[in-house]
């Protein structure tokens, strides 16, 4: 086993997922099989091959420093689950 239930629980906590015991075990098995499949890539000889972080061969996509957006607070806040005046409203944050 590459992935333990413990690791699944850790990742689930970080991702704010609440998983039942049977889900944790099932996911550990599924993730394990995915990683095993990825191991196939390790069979390739990648010596002297630059690591790639993007699939497209394009760099330096830049825009000029100009303000082009008009304020549209109303439209945007209409998509929020909850609002309070012009603020987004979220459950009380306790520091």
């Amino acid at each position, binding site marked *: 086993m590459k992935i333990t239930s413990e690791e699944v629980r*850790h990742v689930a*906590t*970080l991702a*704010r997922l609440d998983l039942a015991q049977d889900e944790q075990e099932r996911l550990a098995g599924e993730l394990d099989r995915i990683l095993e499949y990825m191991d196939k890539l390790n069979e390739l000889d990648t010596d002297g091959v630059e690591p790639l*972080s*993007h699939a*497209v061969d*394009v*760099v*330096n*996509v*830049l*825009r*000029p*420093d*100009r*303000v*082009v*957006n008009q*304020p*549209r*607070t109303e439209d*945007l*806040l209409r*998509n929020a689950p*909850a609002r*309070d*005046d*012009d*603020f*987004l*409203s*979220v*459950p*009380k*944050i306790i*520091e």
Partner: protein
Amino acid sequence: MSYETVIGLEVHAQILTESKIFCGCSTRFGEAPNRNTCPVCMGFPGVLPVLNRKVVEHTIRTGLATHCAIARHSRWARKNYFYPDLPKGYQISQYELPLCTGGHVDVSVDGAAKRVRLTRIHMEEDAGKNIHDARGDHSLVDLNRAGVPLMEIVSEPDMRNPGEAGEYLRTLRSILEYLEVCDGNMEEGSFRCDANVSLREAGNEELGVKVEIKNLNSFKAVEKALEYEIRRQGQALSEGGAVVQETRLWDPDAEVTRSMRSKEHAHDYRYFPDPDLLPLEIDEEWVDEIRATLPELARERQNRFVEEYGLPAYDADIVTQRRDVAEYFEAAVKAHANPKAIANWLMGDLFRVLKERRLDAALRIESWPVAAADLARMVRLVDEGTISGKLAKTVFNEMMETGKGPDAIVKEKGLEQVSDTGALDAAVDEVLAACAAQVEEYRAGKEKVFGFLVGQVMKATRGKANPQMVNEILRGKLQG
């Protein structure tokens, strides 16, 4: 047991741009809540960030001015965590391949040179703002700041006391201001600092357990928080205890640091390259282009002011701490070549008024109440004997209040210095007649009374008499 303090600082400096780092929203401070937002910086699904060119250029500028290596290849990473001010659930930042690495900042601490090495400078987006206390049962979020461009400037743990940390910050802020890449305003949060501090036994090479201090909103807060934390850790260690690695918040009212016991901030950010943003490739040509635009920085300018204008090192240091002040000074000196007098007015009266009116936070020459040319003209009026040094203060205050030029004020208020012998003669005679008793005392050998008599003449002429001439005339008459 004696301990050595080890301090490293992380500065988040807002990069001076019109628009945000990945979208065309304004970065203006103080707008109505959520006015500077769009689907990109609010983290709506399906949007694509596009990088602001100026963010890259300003960061390269900063890297060059602090002697960093500029990376040929650089890329973006996602830093994953949940917090209500972070709408996407990740912050776009840089991780393995930051734009600038290495480098250093030279500071002067009580006259001694000190070099603080830099680990890296990388670019990232700011988060929004949470408001906790406005409502009882829920918190409010304003995303105007989300996506505002930042540089994170990370130092090596090279500082050994709070004074060095303070000087490093002041020097760094001055560099950013000279480069015009950050306005350095700590109150508005455009220059923020987190401090890492640990103690180790003197002579030990290994670093002790460090504590990170947040919420440092002024230079004073940084120094005070470090002093407190050094005391706290020193006490814990000398009592045989241990320092716990943690993040603590500075409470400026109680002047203590407090543990932030939040499990939410587990330092497990699962960084990975951001697939939405393409890598950067910076060629030598681009770097050279930016290098060619670097201005003369504070230290170089300070040396030049000493050599070129004969200013004392202390004056040159103060006058060059901010680029706009240095430029104001030079403009005034060009108009009238009395650097020392101009520096005195600048450091004394002008700075005091700027502080009182709270203009010092966003010091911009355009908003100064006295133009450089007017200050120079006023100093010239004193040097040429048109007004007395004493009345110059009146003229200066009037310039502050009304924005009028010094000549107009002198004329309007009739402040021209009286250097006419006949008029002064008469004034001295009047005083001598009125103060017969004091004249007797003087003649009996009480030299001090002379000053009193000069004062009486100045008073009688409402400060307009030329003091040197009054001295001469008075002495002549008393001896005669």
